[in-house]
């Protein structure tokens, strides 16, 4: 077993990165695949979404280079689904990485022991440029870019793709899994226009959209995942389709 590392990244905030990462990890674990979610976002919202306390897991893993990564991994109470939590100290780790000019593959090297233990390693990243996000993308085999279907977010998408291009030039061997339109709203003209723009510009790389859903917001408050709240909900079906696409193409 060699884990496939998927990074969920976009430099723009509020595009559904954490929701996508957490839901995807949960759904993959339902298919008898072992998954670990690594929260590289200083906001530490992955732990909150799973009803777990925020901890300095990512900070310790990145700063204590010789510490065993396993001691910071937490069980989520779901079979085959673990979490390496993060909190605001992750931002400190980012400052240290940049100050010490640590190499691009620092996260990749720290994740190496987990490669043989999990089927999927999912990295949730912060909406920022450089530092941890850049190194997280470099560690990944696949990049998934959620982008909300609105003008500002699509502009951030161009910047994200430019960052990926620069990483390819610096030796990144990963692949673009796709652009995931989120917060799609059938009745909003802006949403429909942006969706059309995305399809015109990027073609097949644009995945099926995830519709805006109140349930996705409620999940966080309940500490449950969308499929635990309502297995028949449209959002559950859409994320399940995304999961199947990922299993097929990775």
């Amino acid at each position: 077993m060699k884990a496939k590392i998927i990074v969920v990244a976009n430099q723009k905030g509020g595009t559904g990165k954490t929701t996508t990462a957490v839901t995807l990890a949960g759904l993959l674990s339902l298919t008898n695949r072992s998954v670990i979610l690594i929260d590289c976002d200083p906001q530490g919202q992955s732990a909150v979404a799973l009803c777990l306390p925020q901890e300095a897991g990512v900070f310790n893993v990145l700063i204590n280079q010789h510490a065993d990564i396993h001691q910071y991994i937490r069980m989520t109470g779901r079979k085959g689904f673990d979490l390496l939590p993060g909190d605001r100290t992750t931002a400190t780790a980012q400052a240290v990485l940049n100050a010490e000019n640590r190499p691009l593959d620092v996260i990749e090297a720290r994740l190496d022991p987990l490669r043989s233990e999990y089927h999927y390693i999912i990295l949730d990243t912060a909406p920022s440029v450089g530092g941890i996000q850049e190194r997280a993308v470099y560690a990944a085999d696949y990049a998934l870019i959620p982008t909300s279907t609105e003008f500002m977010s699509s502009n951030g998408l161009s910047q994200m793709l430019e960052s990926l291009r620069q990483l390819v030039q610096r030796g990144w061997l990963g692949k673009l899994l796709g652009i995931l339109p989120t917060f799609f709203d059938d009745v909003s003209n802006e949403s429909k226009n942006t969706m059309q723009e995305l399809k015109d510009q990027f073609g097949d790389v644009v995945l099926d959209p995830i519709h805006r859903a109140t349930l996705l917001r409620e999940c966080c408050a309940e500490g449950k995942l969308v499929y635990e709240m309502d297995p028949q909900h449209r959002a559950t079906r859409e994320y399940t389709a995304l999961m199947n696409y990922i299993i097929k193409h990775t």
Partner: protein
Amino acid sequence: MTRTPFIAPTDTLSLIPTAAQAKLSKPKNRRAWEKRNPLRSHRIPTALHPTAKEIRLALAGLAEQYMTTHANIAAALMHFSLSELRSGKLHLTAQPNPNGLKMKIVWSCVDEHWPQEIPLPKKKKPAPLMLNKAKGLYLGYRWGHEVDVQISAEAEARGVTCGETLVRLMQYALDAYRSGRLRLKEASVVVKQQVNATWS
């Protein structure tokens, strides 16, 4: 008229490989090598079943450690044993198996003789039920046809079964690994060549 939010994205995207394209462009594995080298399993003698099971477990452990297939590990170990055999460092000697003796009838002529009676056969007893008969155990790995030929040749030269030879060779390699004399490491193998036109 609405403005476009994208800053020259199409050019950027052409430089980033996508997962869907990679899946499509990946050539289909026609398993030509597997077709040329069909798996050949060897029946292991009952006395060697425990050893064969240990070998199987050891291979599974090593395959997990090196994150590769059982066949890859088995091939590496078998190549080691065969090369040691060829270089004379390993000796395989065949000796009579006391459990495998059977009586044979030979004839002789005698000068002083007297008439002998041929007895009538006794009533044939039904064969005892073989409840505890050991199940057959087979071992075989995809290490290529050539290796199988070499194992057969070694077995034939010593008048023993292929399964026994296989077990002994694997046991030798695993003992060498346990003692630290044999090391396994990953090495890149060229499976495909590509032509680049260059000039000087």
